[in-house]
C-alpha cells in the first residue's frame, strides 16, 4: 500500500519521459491523451491515499525508497501525513485542470510537446518536495522545482525578455537555496540526521541555542522560493512564460513551497522568537509593497503577479503570528482563486490575440460573459467577500494576528490596510477589463473555446465553496493538520464577540476597496469633485516601478558587481599581482645590469682590484695575531 506513494510521485516523471521518447511520432491529440490520462490517474491515486489517511486518523504513512548512506543514516523516504496529503491532492488536482486548459491555450504552438514535458517534470518535482520524508529529499524537490520553473518561464526562449526573466528567477531562487543548503548542513551537523520526526523529537526533548541560526537559514530559503522582500522581483518578470504555467507555478504550487516548508518545520520555528519576528515583518512589508505596486500596473498578468506576492505575504504573516493552520488554509483557497484568475486572464489574452495591456481592453463582459463572470467570482474571493473562499481564510489570518496582542495589534492594522489595497486593485483590474466603456476596438473578441471554459467554471465553483472546509464552525483543516502539528503551539482565534467584530471590519475593508475602485475608475469621481490628489503623478510612477526597487537592485548588484570585478581585474590582478611578478624580475635584471658594469674588460682596473684585495688580505693577516707566540 505504501508503494503507491512512490507511484504518485513517479507517474508525472514517467509521463514526461514517455512524451520525450515518442515525441517525433505523435501529434497533439495523442499528447493530450497521454498527459491528461496520467494526470487523472495521479489525482485518483492521490485522493484514494488521502481517504485512506483520513480513515487512519491521519497517522503518518511512511515509505522508504532506498537507503543512500548508512552512517549518518540518510534514506530516500516519503511521508504521507495531513500536511503533505493536502498539498498532494491540491497539486495533482490543479495539474489536471490546468493541463486541460493548456491543451486549448497552447495548441498550434510549435513547441507543444516540450511544454507538456516541462509541465510534467514540474509536477514530479513538486510532488517530490511535498511528499518528502526528510530534509534531503525535500531539497531535491526544491531544486528541481526551481529548475522546472526556469524552463517554463523561458519557454519561448527565442524572446530575449523571456530568457532574461528565466535567468533572473533562477538566480534569485538560488540565493534562497543557499540559505536552505546552509540550513541543511546545520541540521545534519547538529542533529545527525535528516529525518523530520527524529529531528523534531530531538528539538522537543531539549532546547538548543543554535536553533535560531537554522531557522533563519531556512527562512532565507523560503524567501527565495516564495518571492518575499527582497527576493521578489523575479515573479513579475516570470509572467513571460505561458499563462497556464504561471497559473500552476506562480499561483498555486511553487511559490507556496516556502510556506509549506516553514509549516513543516514549525516545531523548530516555534522556539525561535527572532525567526518569527523576521517572518512576520517581511511578510507584512512584502504584502504592502506588492499591493502598492499592483495599483498602477498596466499588464493584465503583472497585476496578478503582484497580487500573488501580496497574498504570499499574508501567508507569511500567518506563520509569523503562529497561525500555521490559517496559513495552510489560505494557501489552499488562494491556489483556487488565483489559478482561476490566471486562467481567466489567459482566456482573455488568447481571445485578444495576445494583447496584454488592460488599458486597451474594456467592456468585455458583453462579449465574453462566462469568462467575465468567473473572473468576477475570483475578484470577489480575493477581496474577502463572504461566503466566498477568500473571506474565510483571510479573516482567519487577520483574527489570529489580532489575537496575539501587543505589537501584533499594529501588525493587524497594517494587514487590514493590505487587504483593503488588495480589494482596490483587484476591483480596478476587473472593472478596467470587463466593465469600463471604452473606445477600443473589441468587436473581434468572442467567447473562449469550451475547453478553456470548463476548467474556469470548475475552479469558479471551488472558489465559492472551498472556504467551508475551515470555518469557525467546522475546523476541517485544523483536524487534518492536528496530527502533524500536535507538538506545535498554534495561535487560536479569539472567541465570541471580538471575532464577529473583526470579521465585520475585514468585510468592510473589502467592500470599501471594491467600491472605491468603482468610484475612481468607472465613475471617475476624482475629476467630478475636482479633488486634487497630491503628487498623483509621482505616486503613480512609484507604484508602477515597484518603488524603483528593481532599479535599486540592478544598480547595487549588477552594476556594482561589474564595477567591482573590473576593479579587481585591473588593480589587483593587473597592477598588484602582475606588478609584483614583473617587479621581481626587473629587480634582478637591473641589478645584474649594474653589476655587469664592473666587468670593464680593462686590464688596468683588474690589476687595481687585484692589488686592493690582496692588500686587504694581507692586512687581515697582520691584524689577526698568529697563534704561535
Amino acid at each position, binding site marked *: 500500500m505504501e508503494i503507491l506513494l512512490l507511484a504518485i510521485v513517479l507517474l508525472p516523471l514517467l509521463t514526461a519521459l514517455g512524451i520525450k521518447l515518442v515525441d517525433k511520432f505523435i501529434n497533439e491529440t495523442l499528447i493530450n491523451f497521454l498527459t491528461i490520462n496520467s494526470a487523472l490517474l495521479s489525482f485518483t491515486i492521490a485522493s484514494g491515499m488521502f481517504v485512506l489517511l483520513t480513515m487512519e486518523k491521519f497517522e503518518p504513512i511512511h515509505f522508504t525508497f532506498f537507503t543512500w548512506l548508512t552512517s549518518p543514516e540518510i534514506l530516500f523516504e516519503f511521508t504521507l501525513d495531513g500536511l503533505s496529503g493536502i498539498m498532494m491532492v491540491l497539486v495533482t488536482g490543479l495539474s489536471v485542470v490546468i493541463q486541460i486548459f493548456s491543451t486549448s491555450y497552447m495548441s498550434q504552438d510549435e513547441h507543444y510537446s516540450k511544454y507538456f514535458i516541462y509541465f510534467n517534470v514540474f509536477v514530479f518535482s513538486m510532488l517530490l518536495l511535498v511528499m518528502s520524508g526528510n530534509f534531503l529529499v525535500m531539497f531535491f524537490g526544491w531544486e528541481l522545482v526551481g529548475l522546472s520553473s526556469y524552463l517554463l518561464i523561458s519557454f519561448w526562449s527565442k524572446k530575449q525578455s523571456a530568457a532574461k526573466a528565466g535567468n533572473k528567477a533562477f538566480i534569485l531562487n538560488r540565493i534562497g537555496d543557499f540559505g536552505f543548503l546552509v540550513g541543511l548542513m546545520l541540521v545534519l551537523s547538529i542533529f545527525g540526521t535528516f529525518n523530520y520526526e527524529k529531528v523534531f523529537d530531538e528539538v522537543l526533548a531539549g532546547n538548543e541555542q543554535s536553533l535560531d541560526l537554522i531557522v533563519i537559514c531556512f527562512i532565507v530559503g523560503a524567501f527565495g522560493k516564495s518571492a518575499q522582500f527582497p527576493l521578489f522581483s523575479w515573479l513579475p518578470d516570470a509572467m513571460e512564460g505561458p499563462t497556464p504555467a504561471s497559473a500552476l507555478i506562480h499561483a498555486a504550487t511553487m511559490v507556496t513551497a516556502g510556506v509549506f516548508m516553514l509549516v513543516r518545520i514549525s516545531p523548530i520555528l516555534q522556539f525561535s522568537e527572532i525567526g518569527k519576528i523576521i517572518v512576520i515583518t517581511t511578510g507584512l512589508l512584502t504584502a504592502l509593497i506588492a499591493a502598492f505596486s499592483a495599483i498602477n500596473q498596466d499588464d493584465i498578468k503583472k497585476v496578478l503577479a503582484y497580487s500573488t506576492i501580496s497574498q504570499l505575504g499574508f501567508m507569511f504573516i500567518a506563520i509569523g503570528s503562529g497561525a500555521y493552520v490559517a496559513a495552510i488554509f489560505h494557501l489552499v483557497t488562494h491556489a483556487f482563486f488565483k489559478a482561476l484568475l490566471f486562467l481567466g486572464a489567459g482566456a482573455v489574452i488568447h481571445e485578444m490575440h495576445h494583447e496584454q495591456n488592460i488599458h486597451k481592453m474594456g467592456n468585455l463582459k458583453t462579449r465574453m460573459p462566462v469568462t467575465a463572470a468567473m473572473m468576477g467570482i475570483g475578484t470577489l474571493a480575493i477581496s474577502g467577500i463572504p461566503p466566498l473562499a477568500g473571506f474565510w481564510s483571510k479573516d482567519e489570518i487577520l483574527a489570529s494576528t489580532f489575537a496575539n496582542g501587543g505589537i501584533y495589534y499594529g501588525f493587524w492594522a497594517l494587514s487590514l490596510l493590505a487587504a483593503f489595497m488588495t480589494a482596490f486593485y483587484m476591483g480596478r483590474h476587473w472593472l478596467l477589463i470587463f466593465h469600463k466603456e471604452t473606445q477600443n476596438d473589441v468587436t473581434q473578441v468572442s467567447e473562449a473555446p469550451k475547453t478553456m471554459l470548463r476548467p474556469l467554471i470548475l475552479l469558479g465553483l471551488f472558489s465559492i465553496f472551498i472556504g467551508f472546509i475551515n470555518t469557525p464552525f467546522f475546523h476541517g483543516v485544523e483536524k487534518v493538520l492536528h496530527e502533524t502539528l500536535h507538538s506545535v503551539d498554534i495561535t487560536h482565534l479569539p472567541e465570541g464577540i471580538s471575532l464577529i467584530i473583526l470579521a465585520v471590519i475585514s468585510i468592510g475593508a473589502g467592500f470599501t476597496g471594491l467600491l472605491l475602485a468603482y468610484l475612481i475608475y468607472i465613475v471617475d469621481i476624482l475629476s467630478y469633485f475636482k479633488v486634487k490628489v497630491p503628487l498623483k503623478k509621482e505616486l503613480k510612477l512609484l507604484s508602477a516601478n515597484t518603488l524603483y526597487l528593481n532599479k535599486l537592485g540592478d544598480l547595487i548588484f549588477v552594476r556594482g558587481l561589474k564595477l567591482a570585478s573590473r576593479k579587481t581585474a585591473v588593480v589587483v590582478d593587473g597592477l598588484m599581482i602582475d606588478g609584483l611578478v614583473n617587479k621581481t624580475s626587473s629587480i634582478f635584471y637591473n641589478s645584474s645590469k649594474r653589476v655587469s658594469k664592473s666587468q670593464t674588460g*680593462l686590464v688596468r682596473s683588474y690589476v687595481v682590484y687585484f692589488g686592493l684585495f690582496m692588500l686587504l688580505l694581507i*692586512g687581515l693577516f697582520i691584524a689577526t695575531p698568529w697563534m704561535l707566540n
Partner: protein
Amino acid sequence: MLDIVLFAVPAGLVILGALIVIFAKNPVHNAMGLVLTLASLAIIYITLNATFVAMVQMLVYAGAVMTLFLFVIMMIGVDKPEQTREEIKGQTFLVSGTLLILGGIVSYVVIKSGLKWDLWFPAVDYTLEGTPDLIAGSLFTEWILPFEIISILLIVATAAAIALAYDTKPRKKL
C-alpha cells in the same frame, strides 16, 4: 762598513732603475732603466753568495730578454708620446686608495716591529757558496722533473711565438 756600502749602492741603483721604468716617457728610457735594475740586482746576488745565478741573470735577463724588448720597442712604441691623462673612470681614486692602504700597512708593520722584521726562523751561521756544481748536483737529481718540464715549456713558447706573429698574407711572387 764595506758591507753596507756594498749593499747600499746596488740597492739605490735598483730603486733608481725601477723608478725610471715607471716614470719615463720614452720607451727606450724605460728599457734602459730596466737594464740598470737587472744589472744591479746581479751585483746584489753576488753579495749574497749566489754567483752562478748572478751570471745566468746577466746572460739571460739583461742580455736576451732586454734585447727582445728593445727590438719590439723599435717595432712598436717609439712614435707616439703616451697620453698622461687618465681615461678610465675611478681609476685615480682606486689607485690612490690602494697606495694609501699599502702605505698604511707598511708603516704599521714597520712601527710595530721597530724597523726590524720579525723573522720566525733564525739565520744559519754558515755561508753557502752558490757554485755551479752545488746547483747542478741538486738540479739534476732531485729536481730533474721540473727541469725537463721547463725545457718542454721553452719549446712550446717558441712555437707559440712563431704561430702568433706569423704573417699569413701570401708573399708576392718574385
